[in-house]
């Protein structure tokens, strides 16, 4: 399964964080790699969206929408900038 990138979830992230997030910096909690959200690997073919670090492939973010509510798990990130 080929991964996309963080650009593909720009709309969902905007909805969740209320700001444009693709250019925001983030740090992988597993390997410490820092990059822009747009550069993360995104898999959208499953029941939810899985976002992985492009360096170590660790899961950094998951987004699951159930009955209009989006559940967001960010435990794989040590840091996520919020451009406010």
């Amino acid at each position, binding site marked *: 399964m080929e*991964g996309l*990138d963080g*650009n593909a979830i720009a709309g969902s992230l905007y909805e969740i964080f209320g700001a444009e997030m*693709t250019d925001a910096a983030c740090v992988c909690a597993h390997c410490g790699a820092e990059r822009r959200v747009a550069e993360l690997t995104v898999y*959208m073919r499953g029941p939810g969206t899985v976002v992985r670090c492009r360096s170590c492939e660790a899961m950094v973010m998951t987004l699951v929408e159930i009955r209009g509510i989006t559940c967001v798990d960010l435990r794989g990130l040590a840091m996520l900038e919020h451009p406010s």
Partner: protein
Amino acid sequence: MERTALRRRLSWTQARVVDLLDETASVRSIVVEPPEWPGHRAGQHVDVRLTAEDGYQAQRSYSIASAPEDDHLVLTVERLEDGEVSPYLVGELRPGDELELRGPIGGYFVWEESLGGPLLLIAGGSGVVPLRAMLRHRSAVASVVPVRLLYSARSLADVIYRDELMQAATGLVDIRFTLTRARPEGWTGYDRRIDRELLAEVAWPPDDDPLVYVCGPTGFVETAAGSLVDLGHDPGRIRTERFGPS
């Protein structure tokens, strides 16, 4: 103003389809008029949502093909035979129909004149769409940033915006096609998939520190961006956007 734009609420809106333009046999440009449009930046996209009669919804992202300065908002969509959304957009949509969309979205894969250059644009197939918006924007603001587009397509008939791109190729605008499957007789341009050797020939040398935008299918983007890094380009100057089946 930038701050206001960041805090804008992103909501779904019904945009009226005012025109449809066939770009190639499988690619169509959709000219839309959203009731309110805050303006966009070259390289941004919109989300499009289709709702079936039974309530089932499918949502995809499409790059904006028009420059911020253009009169209308234009999306260019390639029909993928097994797609859920693109066959409707390319084959069924008619002028006067309404299309549900939200945007503009994205802040990373964006070019503005203040970012400078030289600007190297690398497109695989319909990955040319956001790069075309950048070219049009550059031209609309009369930018003197040198730009080079390397566009990989299967054949000349698959080249989207072919006439426009050929006409744009003057002075500081360098447009190069590589045709990977079929070439017209007497074709003297590039005739293979983008690889390290081709990029070494086409890209400005790393010492010129070009600002690079790569857009295409995932495998294409990995090859192009990886080869540029191998050639000594600064990864921090390479922005990428990958697309998949839609």
